[in-house]
């Protein structure tokens, strides 16, 4: 049998020597422009919901409790770490951190929830300057996404003109 090629294969391994990194002991930081967990900076965020519109996984939910307060909830469950929200944010409030060690036993740990004071803003969407015409704000005005079972409530002209696509949620406020 081809003993020569067997020896060569064994040599390939032995020449490389033991390369195992002792990971949990020595830390292995991610490179600089790594797309880790997005961090939402509440000071800079103006509540324009531009990131919510451009998130492919549709997991930044926006819920207008009332005239003055807008809740922006980043779920982190199905986030694909693509960095689109950080690209389109007009105020650079979202930064892609270098954090990747996000293992947990309760999925609620990775979410971030911001209650933003909007005073009398009618959420008309003009404050969101989109980088290119392809990223226009799809949903303007008040938004009542479903925070409990973490779903976007979506009205799109691509669909039936009048009634909403998803069964409208009934809000029984206290």
């Amino acid at each position, binding site marked *: 049998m081809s003993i020569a*090629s067997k020896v060569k294969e064994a040599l*390939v391994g032995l020449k490389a020597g033991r390369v195992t990194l002792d990971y949990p002991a020595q830390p292995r930081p991610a490179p600089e*422009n790594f797309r880790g967990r997005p961090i939402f900076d509440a000071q800079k965020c103006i509540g324009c919901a531009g990131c919510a519109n451009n998130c492919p996984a549709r997991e930044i939910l926006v819920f207008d409790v009332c005239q003055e307060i807008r809740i922006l909830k980043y779920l982190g469950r199905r986030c694909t770490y693509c960095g689109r929200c950080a690209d389109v944010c007009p105020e650079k409030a979202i930064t892609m951190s270098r954090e990747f060690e996000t293992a947990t036993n309760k999925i609620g740990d990775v979410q971030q929830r911001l209650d933003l004071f909007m005073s009398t803003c009618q959420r008309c969407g003009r404050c969101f300057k989109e980088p290119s*015409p392809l990223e226009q704000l799809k949903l303007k005005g008040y938004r009542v996404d479903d925070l409990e079972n973490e779903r976007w409530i*979506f009205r799109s002209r691509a669909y039936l003109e009048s009634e909403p696509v*998803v069964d409208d949620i009934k809000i029984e406020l206290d």
Partner: protein
Amino acid sequence: MIAREKLDQLKAGAGSAILRAVLPSDRCVFVFVEPSALKKVCQYVFRDLDARYVTSIGADDRPFSGSFLVAHNFAFDRDHLLCSILTEIPADNPVVDSISEVVPPANWAERELRDLVGIKLNGHPYPKRLVLPDGWPEDSHPLRKDVPWNFVPPDYDDEREYEFGDPPEGCTVVPFGPFHPTLDEPAHFRLYVDGERVRGCEYRGFMAHRGIEKLAESVLTYNDIPIMAERICGICGCVHNVTYAQAVESAAALQAPPRAEYLRTILLELERLHSHLLWVGLACHIVGFDTLFMQCFRIREPVMWVAEKITGNRKTYGLCVIGGVRRDLTVELKAELQQVLDRLETEWKAVTGAVLKDRNIQQRTCGVGVADRKLVKEAGLVGPVARAAGVDIDCRRDHPYAAYDRVAFDVITAADGDVWSRVVVRAREVFESIKIIRQCLEKMERGPIQLTLKDELPAGRMGMSSVEAPRGECHHFVITGEDNRPRRWRVRAPTYQNLQGVPMMIKDQQLADMTITLGSIDPCFSCTDRLETIDLKSGATRVWSPEELLKLGRNKQTL
């Protein structure tokens, strides 16, 4: 103007059937024909003009043109031309005659458009369900415009099992179940095994069908879809990303800046590097040679690290947006990339030197899973599987895209089309990719990496693009639409065609070779999203009844 000559050839052959033709560029031509003449024209193109069948598309255009649209895409590799033959079918009774008898590779794509868009095919040899989950009722078709993306029909019953054909006489059924150590994704094979010989197989795929085309038409916008396109398949994500971006750009007549094209070429080749290294490792793992599996993955890690530094993620690069690329290559990244390539080349030379002369592996792979030139033509096989059979097709040279026309490389082919020649072809293609990346790094000039778009993309335009994925030709077809999202987006992954050849490859083979033959086409079922069942003319007694299979699945047996 090659497209003009080909169109005249078509007019000569098909005569009056052609209604109108659209020639957006010298690379692709769209020909509208009457529904009645579709089969004749497709036969003429596939048989007489010796075109290669690519895919078929069914689209529901009722809100816009009031009719259904069926398109069959062919590729003329020697003339560097993609040709699409389209027909419009009246909305009230969407019936078209199927071309699967004359163009065998079209078998699956047609059954898929029957499932998803509800266009009836008369004369289809095997009109079984293909795409939707087992319990889906017959009359509901998700890709129609009047149904939202998360609509599940009320009479969807979970208990209905897919009715398999019964096995041939004297064969036991081996369920090669959804979860198998060598299968990366869920795919259920029913192998008809006689002793150690596999007589035939029946495959119920589509467990990875996630309805991505419906999402693209209803919820996501132009610049969200590349992120989803990247997650069609975990290994060739960048390929789908670039193909989609190029398809939309060709539809909207945009031209990405040259630096972006060089960046796209570099990252496509980087992905081919890590995909081929991964495959050689996995093939050795399937054959039981774990040391080489570990060595291949060890050599591959630096490629993943440098990709992570350039794009921010090891595997899903998030590279393209419509009109360019999101991130640039700095000078120190370029130097680091060259170091990684040099080290990779020396180590891979050592490994290929050892493997290509290793008779032990040759014993397990020579003469196994043979796919000759005739099977390549009949099943429309693409990529390394076709090149291993001596068929000289490669999208990078036949349908040049990105910066491939400014780069010199040669296409590797082998002779006898078995698993061993596929190993050889893939191992040698690694060196070609390294050569391409080096040339791109030298020729790259400074410049913008994204196009500045003035207004929204025009609606109703058609575009298609073919990119050479590590597994073969990956083809996307796009019809642009309003509201910043495409009207129809069709994905045809290379494994879609290659898997049609597997039943013919494993016929009368050893059971132990089943896994290595299936592995040799480097299947990516999540890429495929759609698959086919081979039929076995069998009237013999039933060895395993479906109830037994259900019982097998129900109680505490492993599947």
